[in-house]
């Protein structure tokens, strides 16, 4: 009796489930399509527009460049334009060491800032993940809280803290730790402080989410088996939090490369980053094509770490299985 019921039930279920499964499959696909559409409209289309401008030449007109690849003259005109394309603006970038230096400086500053942010952010995330579950939401709130104030105002506030007569120097002088005010504002140190401060939440949040999921009985097991605490951390906790580390580092590194506001306000004038170079091309030289070329190259420079990340993630998933 039970056997019959068991065999009959699935078939009845399949018959009834068929239309819903088709609907469900469609819904599933729709759900997948949405991020792709998002990427298409907010990434690919703007990129193509920027790329198109990067192939044109400047002109004193509205908009300030000559159109390329226009459909105005029909399809044949489009193909004629295609053959006439040139990459002068890209070769221009190789002729002056300025651009290369600016890219390298940006990458170095972003790289150092990312490492510093990781060093500061990891203990915070770890502490949050190990805190009693009841206060974790409060801690999370505290991490997100700075976002309620304008980014610009928070960076401006650092001028008040770091300047020679600023808060930090006053405190240090009053406590007798230093006798001369430290020159921090308008140096690379100020840029690092600014970036670490501004991007810390982007590092802490992914770290926290991967550390929170961790099974801490693994640590107990390691300790039971005689592994010292630091050893357990490096052998278990850190490797398990690696996806969070990578995600956090990318979330900090990528925007830091193109950072404009922090070096402008906190850094010295001698700081040459790619954001400022782009600003100069766009606003001072009014050369939209060359500034677009700078932007396209910047995007390529940034795509490489993202690809590494995806590879690392795919590998991690394979290992997980």
């Amino acid at each position, binding site marked *: 009796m039970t056997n019959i019921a068991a065999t009959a039930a699935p078939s009845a279920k399949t018959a009834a489930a068929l239309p819903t499964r088709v609907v469900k499959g469609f819904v599933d696909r729709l759900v997948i399509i949405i991020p792709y559409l998002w990427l298409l409209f907010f990434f690919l289309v703007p990129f193509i527009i920027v790329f198109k401008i990067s192939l044109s030449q400047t002109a004193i007109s*509205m908009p300030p460049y000559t159109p390329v690849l226009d459909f105005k003259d029909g399809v044949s005109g489009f193909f004629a334009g295609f053959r006439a394309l040139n990459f002068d603006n890209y070769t221009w970038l190789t002729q002056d060491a300025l651009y290369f230096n600016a890219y390298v400086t940006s990458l170095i500053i972003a790289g150092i800032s990312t490492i510093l942010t990781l060093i500061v952010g990891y203990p915070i995330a770890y502490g949050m993940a190990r805190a009693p579950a009841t206060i974790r939401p409060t801690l999370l709130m505290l991490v997100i809280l700075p976002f309620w104030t304008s980014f610009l105002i928070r960076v401006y506030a650092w001028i008040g803290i770091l300047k020679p007569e600023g808060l930090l120097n006053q405190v240090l002088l009053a406590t007798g730790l230093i006798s001369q005010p430290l020159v921090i504002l308008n140096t690379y140190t100020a840029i690092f402080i600014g970036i670490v401060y501004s991007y810390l939440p982007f590092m802490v949040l992914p770290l926290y989410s991967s550390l929170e999921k961790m099974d801490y009985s693994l640590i107990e097991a390691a300790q039971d088996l005689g592994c010292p605490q630091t050893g357990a951390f490096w052998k278990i906790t850190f490797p398990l939090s690696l996806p969070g580390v990578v995600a956090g580092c990318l979330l900090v590194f990528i925007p830091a490369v193109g950072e404009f506001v922090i070096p402008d306000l906190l850094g010295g004038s*001698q*700081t*040459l980053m790619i954001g400022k170079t782009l600003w100069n091309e766009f606003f001072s030289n009014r050369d939209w094509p060359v500034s677009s070329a700078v932007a396209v190259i910047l995007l390529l420079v940034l795509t490489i770490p993202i690809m590494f990340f995806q590879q690392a993630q795919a590998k991690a998933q394979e290992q997980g299985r």
Partner: protein
Amino acid sequence: MIRKALWLSATSIFLTLFTAGGHAEDRVVNVYNWSDYIDSSIIDDFTKKTGIKVVYDTFDSNEILETKLLAGGSGYDVVVPSANFLARQIQAGVFQKLDKSKLPNISNMWDVISERTAKYDPGNEYAVNYMWGTVGLGYNVKKVTAALGTDKIDSWDVFFNPDKLAKLKDCGVYVLDSPADIIPAALKYLGLDPNSTSPDDIAKAEEALLKVRPYIRKFHSSEYINALANGDICLAIGWSGDVFQARNRAQEAKQGVEIGYSVPKEGAQMWFDMMAIPADAPHVADALEFINYMMTPEVIAKSSNYVLYANGNKASQQFVDKAILEDTSVYPDAETIKKLYTVAPYDPKTQRVITRTWTKIVTGQ
């Protein structure tokens, strides 16, 4: 919380759309001007008098305005670019010629200023002057006196002479991050034509600037206002109006910081902010009425009294506060005005040389 915020913004957008639709046939003029640049009662008076509603929006850099204008379809009816930006924008076809028959108040304008703005806008066909000023030396009176032993700052020498600037290094020197304002000043100091575009002359200016570069703390076009007002720096090469703003802030703060401004005796560059109508402006007639109203002597005098800049309206001078009219840092005397110079906008090729030279001066690369 987020959902609530979303609802609020959605409702407000809906309300704006609704109210905008409801008043579609009302007369409107969309004005885009610099921030902190008008006595707002002028706008109310204009609406009371003409029934034209003013949608007043502000920007804080010529570059932002230019980008909006060059992209087209900004929706603004009156914009106020600086003259050197205006010149290029006219070439690009951004503006329409002003219908002078609708601007009877244009007879009030000051020929001394109009002659010079004609350099940017031949025949003054596209724009009329709103305010003008100079590029000069803003300084902290006490600190400069302490460092140099004098508070008589009246020459570019205090900046371009490395021995003098070295003494001001520790109390802080800021310079506009704007090659078009600083390189001509260097040329003037060297006795060359500030309008020169010859690579040799530009190289000489570069050399003069590199000599004083070690003593400059920062190149920035807006931070010096706060830095001067807070007493963080003692010298800034800046736009007159910004330095006056710093002076007022310092007075309000009552921290004992006293800010002075001087127009160097060798001559200084003039800047002009010009009212113009974009070619694609939706409300041209209303825009002309607004510009004409702004040229009423009493009105523009009220604006000058509020923002403390000189205007290009001769007839308004009897209504300008005496203290402002007689302040030679705002309205220089006739002798000094003769020495003030204007710089024509650079062609794209020269602009590139200037920008590249500037990057080298500022960053050392």
